[in-house]
């Protein structure tokens, strides 16, 4: 399979000189099993350019099929969908998978795409669209690819996905806070909680189960893509925002025994030079510890070939 990054940024797109090497588009990753339809993870603004590339293939004459796995419906993971060119061509078939919400998924996406926010309503799109609500732990097949998922620690919950195909596996874990300090759910947390107090036993147990499930999902993966929006120091200031840091990603990668760890969902304010420095620092950590995996940092245009295709 091929894995290509189209958007690597968290929170909000950040155009500009200081972000142009890693890229300013929000989250979007394309997974392409050999000779098969694309499986797209998240629909941030990176989806716009992916859509243009797909229009050069069978999507341009209305014969394309794609599946989009949505980690969660926060803006930076869905805001590219109205600008996905294949949706505007009759004959294309697009399946969207996301965790179930209180309302039907189609209603959630209709709210994004329609008056008074966007000129073209979902109902006016020419492609055939279908919406599939998931719950954590579910698994299903897309062609030869097996999809599995588990829950992450993020406000209003997000899903991690694992895709196994062509003798390789990729795991996408974004967005999530570490599983150590705070269980994030529906409640709006106003201020950063003190991190030196012990957690109630039930919360600690719940977080422990979530972490074990994430480690299990990522076990032996060829590539683990992980939310590292924060540095450790930044995380201490904002543990309630639902994002992690490289030290936590490294610990998960070690426990899961992955072959490559890719830092992802860079903070809007993170400059290219700062991203370079973070990668260099953690490559040093990995080398010093003798960890048996490769450390990468996602940038727009990064393409990895895994498994039978490699």
């Amino acid at each position: 399979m091929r894995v290509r990054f189209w958007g690597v940024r968290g929170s909000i797109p950040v155009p500009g000189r200081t972000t142009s090497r890693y890229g300013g588009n929000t989250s979007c990753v394309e997974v392409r099993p050999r000779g098969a339809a694309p499986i797209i993870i998240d629909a941030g603004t990176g989806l716009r350019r992916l859509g243009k590339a797909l229009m050069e293939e069978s999507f341009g004459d209305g014969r394309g099929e794609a599946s989009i796995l949505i980690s969660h419906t926060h803006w930076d993971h869905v805001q590219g969908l109205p600008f996905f060119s294949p949706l505007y061509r009759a004959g294309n078939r697009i399946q969207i998978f996301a965790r179930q919400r209180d309302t039907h998924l189609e209603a959630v996406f209709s709210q994004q795409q329609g008056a008074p926010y966007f000129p073209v309503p979902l109902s006016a799109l020419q492609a055939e669209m279908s919406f599939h609500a998931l719950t954590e732990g579910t698994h299903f097949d897309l062609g030869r690819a097996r999809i599995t998922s588990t829950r992450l620690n993020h406000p209003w919950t997000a899903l991690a996905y694992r895709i196994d195909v062509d003798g390789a596996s990729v795991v996408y874990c974004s967005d999530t806070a570490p599983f150590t300090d705070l269980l994030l759910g529906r409640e709006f947390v106003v201020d950063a909680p003190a991190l030196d107090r012990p957690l109630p036993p039930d919360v600690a147990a719940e977080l422990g189960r979530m972490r074990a499930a994430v480690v299990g999902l990522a076990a032996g993966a060829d590539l683990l893509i992980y939310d590292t929006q924060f540095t450790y120091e930044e995380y201490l200031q904002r543990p309630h925002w639902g994002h992690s840091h490289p030290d936590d990603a490294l610990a998960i990668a070690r426990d899961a025994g992955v072959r490559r760890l890719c830092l992802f969902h860079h903070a809007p304010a993170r400059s290219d030079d700062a991203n370079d420095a973070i990668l260099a620092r953690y490559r040093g950590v990995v080398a010093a510890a003798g960890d048996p995996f490769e450390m990468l940092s996602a940038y727009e245009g990064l393409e990895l070939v895994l498994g039978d295709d490699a």
Partner: protein
Amino acid sequence: MKIQFWGVRGSIPAPGPDTIRYGGNTSCVSVHAASGALVIIDMGTGLLPLGNALMAGPFGAGAGTATILLSHTHWDHIQGLGFFSPVFVAGNAFTVWGPGGSSDVLEDILEGQMDPNFSPLQTLKNFSARFDVHAMDVGAPLVVDGLTITAREHPHGATTALAFRITEAGRSFVYASDVGQPGDTGPDPDAVAFFAGADVLLHDATYRPQDQATRRNRGFSSYEDAAAAAVAAGARRLVTFHYDQDYSDDDVDDLVASCRRALDARGGAAIELVPAREGDVLEI
């Protein structure tokens, strides 16, 4: 008045090496009046860098006030709001004026952006600053700290958007983004009257005419429409704005050069052409 451009792009932010010179952020312009008043027009992603800049002044200490004018509520004009640092500082106060017909309707629309399915903020009520939302009365001028602000509704695809005219001590800045051109009949006389004699006319110039021809229903102007409006209105300066997300910097260079020729051909050789670029400042 000091006008500064923070986001000049249309429809969706367009990051990338080929949009660095003009900028890829969506619509946001600030106006610092001689009176000290701050007016912000539209809340695209350009609002993020504007907010960061404002935090160095009174807004960082919770002592800032600003008027926000909203042309309409399509994403590219509101999507920066959740990332505007000054709204998270208690003591700051913002008054939003925009479309919607009623203040409750407009507030509901902005509230919908913060819906927990989409935003971790969950509701506007989680802002620390005061954030009052009002529907603009198109017939009645608004007077804020020595500024007079009038609005005009123009067609924008299937909906409408507001243009604003800000006047201080006899000098005027007009902001007219997302201006639909339903036909090819030249500038609307009522629009020309609203723009008349502006010291600076910022006008939608999303497209080159050949690209507009296949997308007229989207409700945007070409540089030809912008040039025609500036000449008819006798504007002193024309600012091109809201460039298509697919235009590279080189494409925008070409659009601006073509706009210059269009002004000259229409008898507007005396009109100064100022292409909007992120970060640039224009004084009136």
